C-alpha cells in the first residue's frame, strides 16, 4: 500500500542544500526538529489543560478521557501506518491483550492492577515480536488480511475461553490503585489519560527524529531504496510494530480500567477498523492527527444520537465526505490549506 506521506513538519528539503545547513544562521535540521518537538508537546499540553474550562458537566470529562485513550492507540498505529507505511487491521487485538491483562491479572492471579498493566504491555510486545517477523514480510493488502486474521484470532480466544475471560458477556475490572490513590471518577481519568497521551506523543516525536525513525520513514517511501541504503528493513518494521502494540495495549488497559467492564468487542474487527479510521481521518503521519481523528470518531456517535435510527446513515456519509474532500486526512489537509494561503 503505497501512501504519500503528507506531513506538517518542516520538510527536510527546505533546509537542504548542505551549504545552507552548515551556514552561519546556526539553525541545523536537528535544531529545527527539536524546536518543532517542543512546540508540539507544548501545544498538546495546552489543549489538555484548557479544554476542561468549557466542560459544563462530568459527562464531558468522561467523553474527553475516552478521546485521549483512543488517541493513544491511534498514535501507536499512526507510527506504524503513517511513518513506517505498514497497515494493520488487527490492532484492536493488542488493545484486547492490554484490557484483559488488567482484568485477569488482579482477578485470577492477585496481581496489583498497575503491575497487570505493565504485564499486559510486555505481553503485547512479546506477541507482536513473535508474530511480527513472519507477518511483516507480507506487503500491502496481504499484510492487511494477515493482521486482520491475527486480530480476529485474539478476539475469538477472548470470547471462547470463558473461564478466564467471562466469554462473550465479558468480565468486570477492578479499580486502578496507584500508591494508595484509587483512580476513579471521570475528572481524574481525564487528567490521567491526558497526561499519558502527552507522554506518548512526546515519545513518538522523539522516535520519529531518531535514526530509527528516519529508517522507518525511508522504508515508507521505498523499501528497496531503504535496503540499498543499508537499513535493516525487517528489524525496523518489527521495532515499530512492537512499539505500536505497546501503545495499543496501554490504551486497552486504560479503557478497561475506565469502564470497569470489558467484552471481547474491545479486540474485535470493528474496533480495529475504527482505529485505522482514526489514523486515516486525522491524517497519516501526523501526531496531532491521531488526536483529531480519535476526537472525531469518539464524539460523532455521541453527537449523532439525536438522529436515532439515522445515526449510522449520517456517520457513513460524514466518513465518506471527509475522505473524499480531505483525502490526506483532516490535519494535513487543513495545514496545507493554511500554508497555501499564507505564502
Amino acid at each position, binding site marked *: 500500500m503505497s501512501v504519500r506521506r503528507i506531513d506538517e513538519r518542516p520538510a527536510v528539503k527546505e533546509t537542504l542544500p548542505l551549504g545552507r545547513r552548515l551556514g552561519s544562521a546556526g539553525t541545523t535540521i536537528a535544531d529545527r526538529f527539536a524546536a518543532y518537538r517542543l512546540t508540539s508537546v507544548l501545544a498538546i499540553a495546552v489543549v489538555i489543560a484548557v479544554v476542561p474550562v468549557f466542560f459544563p458537566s462530568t459527562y464531558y470529562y468522561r467523553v474527553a478521557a475516552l478521546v485521549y485513550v483512543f488517541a493513544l492507540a491511534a498514535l501507536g498505529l499512526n507510527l506504524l501506518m503513517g511513518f513506517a507505511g505498514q497497515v494493520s487491521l488487527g490492532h484492536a487485538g493488542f488493545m484486547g491483550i492490554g484490557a484483559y491483562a488488567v482484568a485477569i491479572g488482579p482477578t485470577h492471579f492477585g496481581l496489583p492492577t498497575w503491575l497487570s498493566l505493565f504485564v499486559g504491555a510486555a505481553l503485547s510486545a512479546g506477541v507482536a515480536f513473535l508474530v511480527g517477523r513472519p507477518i511483516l514480510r*507480507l506487503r500491502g493488502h496481504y499484510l492487511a488480511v494477515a493482521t486482520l*486474521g491475527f486480530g480476529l484470532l485474539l478476539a475469538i480466544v477472548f470470547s*471462547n475461553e470463558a473461564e478466564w475471560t467471562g466469554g462473550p458477556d465479558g468480565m468486570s475490572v477492578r479499580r486502578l490503585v496507584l500508591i494508595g490513590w484509587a483512580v476513579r471518577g471521570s475528572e481524574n481519568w481525564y487528567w490521567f489519560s491526558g497526561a499519558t497521551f502527552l507522554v506518548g506523543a512526546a515519545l513518538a516525536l522523539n522516535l520519529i527524529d531518531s535514526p530509527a525513525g528516519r529508517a522507518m520513514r525511508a522504508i515508507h517511501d521505498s523499501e528497496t531504496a531503504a535496503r540499498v541504503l543499508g537499513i535493516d528493513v525487517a528489524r525496523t518494521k518489527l521495532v515499530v510494530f512492537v512499539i505500536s502494540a505497546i501503545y495499543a495495549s496501554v490504551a486497552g488497559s486504560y479503557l478497561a480500567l475506565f469502564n470497569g467492564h470489558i467484552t471481547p468487542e474491545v479486540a474485535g*474487527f470493528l474496533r480495529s477498523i475504527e482505529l485505522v479510521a482514526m489514523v*486515516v481521518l486525522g491524517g497519516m503521519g501526523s501526531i496531532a492527527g491521531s488526536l483529531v481523528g480519535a476526537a472525531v470518531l469518539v464524539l460523532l456517535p455521541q453527537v449523532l444520537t439525536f438522529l436515532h*435510527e439515522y445515526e*449510522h446513515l449520517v456517520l457513513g*456519509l460524514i466518513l*465518506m465526505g471527509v475522505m473524499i474532500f480531505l483525502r490526506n486526512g483532516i490535519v494535513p489537509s487543513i495545514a496545507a490549506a493554511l500554508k497555501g494561503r499564507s505564502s
Partner: protein
Amino acid sequence: MAEFLQFAFSGLTVGAVYALVALGFTLIYNASDVINFAQGEFVMIGGLATVFIAAAGIPLPLAALLAVVAATAVGLALYRFAIEPARGASAVSLIMITIGASIFLRGAAQVIFDKRYHSLPPLFGDTPIKFGGAAILPQSLVVLAGALVIVVLLWTFIERTLFGKAVLATAANKLAARLVGIDTRRTVGFSFAVSAAIGAIAGILITPITLTSYNIGTLLALKGFAAAMLGGIGSALGAVIGGLLLGLLEAFSAGYLSSQYKDAVAFIVILVVLFARPQGLLGRATVERV
C-alpha cells in the same frame, strides 16, 4: 463418510457465496485498485430487497430481478459519487471511503427495511435429498449451480466480447487502455455494476438457507476479502478457489474440531498459506520499482 459428505456440502454451499463475494472484490480491484469493503452490503441488499419487494405483492422472480437492479444501481452510485470524485487518493483513503459506504448502506437498510432477520422460500422446497447418507438441501444445489452459471457467464463475457476485452485492458493498464481509445470510466463503472449484481444474486440464493438481515454484510466482506487474498488478489480463478476453500475449511473445522473455533482455524490456515506464499495461491509476485 456420510458425515464427511455432509460437511463437504455445507462447506461448498457457504464457500460458493464467499467465492462470489471474492469475485466481486477481484472485479473491482482489477478495474480500479480499490478494495471495496462495501461488497458484503450488496449481498445484504439482494436478499433484503427481494424479501420486501415480494412482501409488497410482486411475484418472487420479478422481485428478485428488481432487487438485483437496485443493487446494481447502488454499485454504480458508489462508483459515481464516492470512488470517482476521490480519484488519485491513496489506497487507504479509498478503503476508508468504502468502509464509510458500508456503514452508510447498513444505516440506510436499517431505516428502509428493518432490523429483523428475514428468509425467502427455497426454490425447490425444503425436503432434503439423501445422497450417500448425507442430507442435502435442494437450495444448496441451487446456490452451487447459480455460482457456477455466474462464473461461466462472466468468464465468457470477459474473454469473448470486445467490451470484456476492454475491461481486461483497463485492469492490465489503465493509461494504456485510455491511449488505445477505451473509455475507462465506462469499464470501471461496469465492473462496479457487475460486482454489485453478483453480490445481490449471491444474497438472493443464500437467503433461504442462512437468512438475511441489515448487518450480515460486514462478516461477508471480511470472509470475501480473506478468500480473495487466499487465492491471490487480482486472480478471478483464485477468488473462486479461495472462497470454496474457505467455506470447506470452516465446515470441516466446525464439524471435526470445534464450532467455536471454526473461524480461527480458517484464519490460521490463511496465515500459514500467506507465510509460505506471500502473494496468495494464484497471485503473481510483484516487483517494487524504485
